[in-house]
């Protein structure tokens, strides 16, 4: 018999329930408020008292209210029909909700049970299968969507039958499997999975060895993100985290993108709702929305569901990875998730860690990041989840618990710099503080050599040196004055500026400049390094600044022009003329 309970205490969304039977940690329960069931999750148990966090406002809730426990943890529904949906943090379909305002206790189905799918079998009777094995395939929008043995199935099964080609609904029986004891079990196209438990239906998780192209030059060229890799973008407010993530979500080379808006602004999600159905994916020519799913718990939506939203996103990503797809998961901002944890921990009067965050914050964050990755599935196919999160450090100070914990978990660090943002050097990623650990992986270096060019890795590390030396030169000039340093310092500084303006800076709002494929990135970096290797002849430091300014201006025009168009080549010609005028002989 299901456990029931009564409310005995209410402090904001922390509700204490006296239970009449067994209760488990993270179990879901429903609290009855004047006929409306409010969903809640058990977060602590003391004797018969279950401390629950309610995913809704508790206004009007009274002592003695009835509670029923559900016997399972917070789950998402997995099946065809997730693609292109707009969900809230608990996977309610926002478009199916009635009314302009969110009504508490209104839960909608994540997957339309009436939708029919064209099913083609993959497995056949007699096949040996296990959790995650592909039984068949439907076409979801334009994407092949595998119907798998439910992840909750443990052990080995034999396929008894698989439906023939035809139209089925998600709750229809699609296959019958026989378990090791000879018992038959039916499988549908739909399954449930608890969000806080990783889906492990794969054989092996190697180190990432491929690059995920994002079209953002300062990332791809200087500090590339690996496919199946992890990265994070910390930065003070207004420095460009969201704009950068949106750029990546539009351009990245992924089959599917899951955008998790976690405790941020509603208007930013509305921007995606509005633009993605219009914008084209440059690789497939399809609308961006056709490869995107949005999980949205904006800052004014219930705090506990905010914490759930990142797990909901990750679980859906794992489901699609198990189909052999390249999934990119974005979360903005993971700090809001950490703050949601802090709010609950404070209400439960737990012993606080640094900045009043829960003590186990670092472990929670690293467990989450570890769910990303490139995998070999049991059938030999590959799939990946690349995860890129943002962090919003209090006061813009990177020495705070969320940034520090994330730094330990993520392999790429894209630090946004306030000064760069103030002087509109977007994207404001600090080229010197930021890093990609993947660049050190021999397998990644090999990949870059093979896929971009033989000496690409050297070019990248030279670029970093140029930037560093440019910064040093600028510091010297500031200390000693323009005429207190050799002219060469000015040259060094300006050569770094060329790299900064031409490669690092990128206009996210210009149709051409906003996305640069690797081929063009390589071409541009070569041109910039040519300038670097050229010896110039300047009579005084006053000649240096106007010369490079003009060069930069021409390069910028090139960035705004169609690649290898007449205009593009024209600017290059002008650049070469200018260089020849000044070249030392």
């Amino acid at each position: 018999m299901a456990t029931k309970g009564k409310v005995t205490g209410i402090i904001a969304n922390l509700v204490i329930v006296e239970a009449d039977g067994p209760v488990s940690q993270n179990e879901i329960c429903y609290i009855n408020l004047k006929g409306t069931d409010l969903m809640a999750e058990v977060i602590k148990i003391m004797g018969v008292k279950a401390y629950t966090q309610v995913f809704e406002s508790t206004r009007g809730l009274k002592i003695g209210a009835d509670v029923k426990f559900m016997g399972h943890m917070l789950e998402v529904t997995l099946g065809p029909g997730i693609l292109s949906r707009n969900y809230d943090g608990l996977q309610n379909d926002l478009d199916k909700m009635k009314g302009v305002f969110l009504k508490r206790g209104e839960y909608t189905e994540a997957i339309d049970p009436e939708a029919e799918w064209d099913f083609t079998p993959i497995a056949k009777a007699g096949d040996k299968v296990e959790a995650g094995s592909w039984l068949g395939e439907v076409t979801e929008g334009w994407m092949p969507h595998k119907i798998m043995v439910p992840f909750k199935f443990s052990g080995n099964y034999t396929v008894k039958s698989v439906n023939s080609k035809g139209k089925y609904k998600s709750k229809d029986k699609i296959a019958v499997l026989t378990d090791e004891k000879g018992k038959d079990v039916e499988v549908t196209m739909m399954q449930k999975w608890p969000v806080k438990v990783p889906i492990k239906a794969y054989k092996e998780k190697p180190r990432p060895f491929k690059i995920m192209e994002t079209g953002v030059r300062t990332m791809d060229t200087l500090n590339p993100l690996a496919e199946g890799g992890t990265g994070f973008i910390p930065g003070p407010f207004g420095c460009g985290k969201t704009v950068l993530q949106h750029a990546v979500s539009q351009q990245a080379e992924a089959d599917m993108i899951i955008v998790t808006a976690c405790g941020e602004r509603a208007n930013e999600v509305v921007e995606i709702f509005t633009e993605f159905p219009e914008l084209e994916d440059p690789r497939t020519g399809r609308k961006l929305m056709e490869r995107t799913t949005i999980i949205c718990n904006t800052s004014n939506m219930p705090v506990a569901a905010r914490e759930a939203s990142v797990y909901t996103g990750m679980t859906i990503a794992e489901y699609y990875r198990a189909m052999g797809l390249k999934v990119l998961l974005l979360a903005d901002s993971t700090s809001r998730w950490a703050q949601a944890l802090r709010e609950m921990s404070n209400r439960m009067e737990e012993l606080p860690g640094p900045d009043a965050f829960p003590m186990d914050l670092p472990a929670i964050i690293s467990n989450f990041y570890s769910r990303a990755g490139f995998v070999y599935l049991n059938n030999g196919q590959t799939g990946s989840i690349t995860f890129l999160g943002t962090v919003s450090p209090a006061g813009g100070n990177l020495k705070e618990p969320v940034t520090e914990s994330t730094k330990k978990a993520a392999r790429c660090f894209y630090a946004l710099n306030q000064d760069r943002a103030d002087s509109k050097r977007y994207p404001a990623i600090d080229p010197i503080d930021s890093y990609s650990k993947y660049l050190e992986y021999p397998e990644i270096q090999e990949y870059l050599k093979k896929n971009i060019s033989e000496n690409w890795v050297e070019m990248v590390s030279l670029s970093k040196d140029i930037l560093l030396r440019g910064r040093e030169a600028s510091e010297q000039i500031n200390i000693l004055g323009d005429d207190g340093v050799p002219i060469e310092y000015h040259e060094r500084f300006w050569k770094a500026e060329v790299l900064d303006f031409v490669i690092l800076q990128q206009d996210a709002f210009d149709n051409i400049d906003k996305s640069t494929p690797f081929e063009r990135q390589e071409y541009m970096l070569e041109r910039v390094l040519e300038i670097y290797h050229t010896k110039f002849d300047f009579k005084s430091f006053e000649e240096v600044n106007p010369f490079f300014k003009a060069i930069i201006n021409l390069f910028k025009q090139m960035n705004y022009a169609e690649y290898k168009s007449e205009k593009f080549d024209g600017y290059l010609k002008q650049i070469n003329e200018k260089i020849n005028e000044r070249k030392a002989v």
Partner: protein
Amino acid sequence: METSAFQKIYTKITQVTKATCSLKAEGIGYEEIARVNGRLAQVVKIQGDTVTLQIFSGTEGIPTNAEVVFMGKAPTIKVSDELAGRFFNAYGDPIDGGPAVEGKEVEIGGPSVNPVRRKQPSELIPTGIAGIDLNNTLVTGQKIPFFADPDQPFNQVMAMVALRAKADKIILGGMGLSNDDYLFFKNIFDNAGALDRIISFINTTENPPVERLLVPDMALTAAEYFAHEKHEKVLVLLTDMTLYADALSIVSNRMDQIPSKDSMPGSLYSDLAKIYEKAVQFPEGGSITIIAVTTLSGGDITHAIPDNTGYITEGQLFLRRDTDIGKVIVDPFRSLSRLKQLVIGKQTRKDHPQVMNAGIRLFADAANAKTKLENGFDLNDYDERTLKFAKDYSRELLAIDINIDIDSMLDTGWRLFAEHFTKAELGIKDELVEKYWPKN
């Protein structure tokens, strides 16, 4: 709010702290309001049969036998067209001598708009102030605060923006407003003949601080009525949100919550977001735009209040005195309107984004030159020119006393560029330079 016959009166308070009192009571709803010896209070915690009430005007003089009456509902306001032109206190009671407002009674601090039912903001709000329209363009449905030290004229600028904004309703939420500022708003709206469009919820420095906590929700619930039900363009002014946050910290500290940064409650982000996220553009044309004031202490934007605000709002307008021209300007570095890209170059001239960026970049170069000068170095020719440019730019475009249309702002920009720089020094797209670079 009278007591009806069936309401039970409790007279046994078991605990009194600076902001709260507790008593044994049954059948009480969370966040329900009550009267404690006539003072308004709200349920903040229920544990077993013990109910804790936060008393908005403070607990001074509350005896253990005070009369406590529960009202069976959360705080409410009556909304109707009768609100227009009226002045209320934080509880929504009239303070202008007029009659109580009749209308539909709604709970304040109600639910959020479903994000998929919102429309992307797209209507530009012209203010005539170039520091805003040129560099930090505002859009209906936006939420944006002024960041300013207490000695800056933020209330004046805000009133000016409000009056020029062509809103159907302006709702003023005053929190810890000095009486002088309250009268200033009253006068300026009156003189502009706008009083019938204005609705005010005022908590002055003379009122207890905790009462302020009701003001934003009152103002925004009224705003939702006009924007959602009447499809009107509503502008909500909230001043000063720093004093609102201070009141939050008073309450949470008195309830023994563990403070996070700057002794603010750990929930500050969520608390502020709930208010600011009420800004919305409805598809039917109604909108709520929030312009707020967050006063800073010594220009410090890393303090928890401006910091959390910045993470929530869609930009900020930073006021500071420019000593070179002796005027208050909208600082182009620290200010930002994140919704500007939805309108600039689209509803304004095509050169807008690039003129904006070039101007700010050159102004930044001037700031570097100034640092150089202060460090005792010689300036080169380019430095000299940026300094001259910066002064003109500040005087003719950044100062808050500018009142011109956006095309004139752009023309002024080009004129200043041409006066001080060469085309190549701008880094603007060629086709735009060809078109707009002054001919003579």
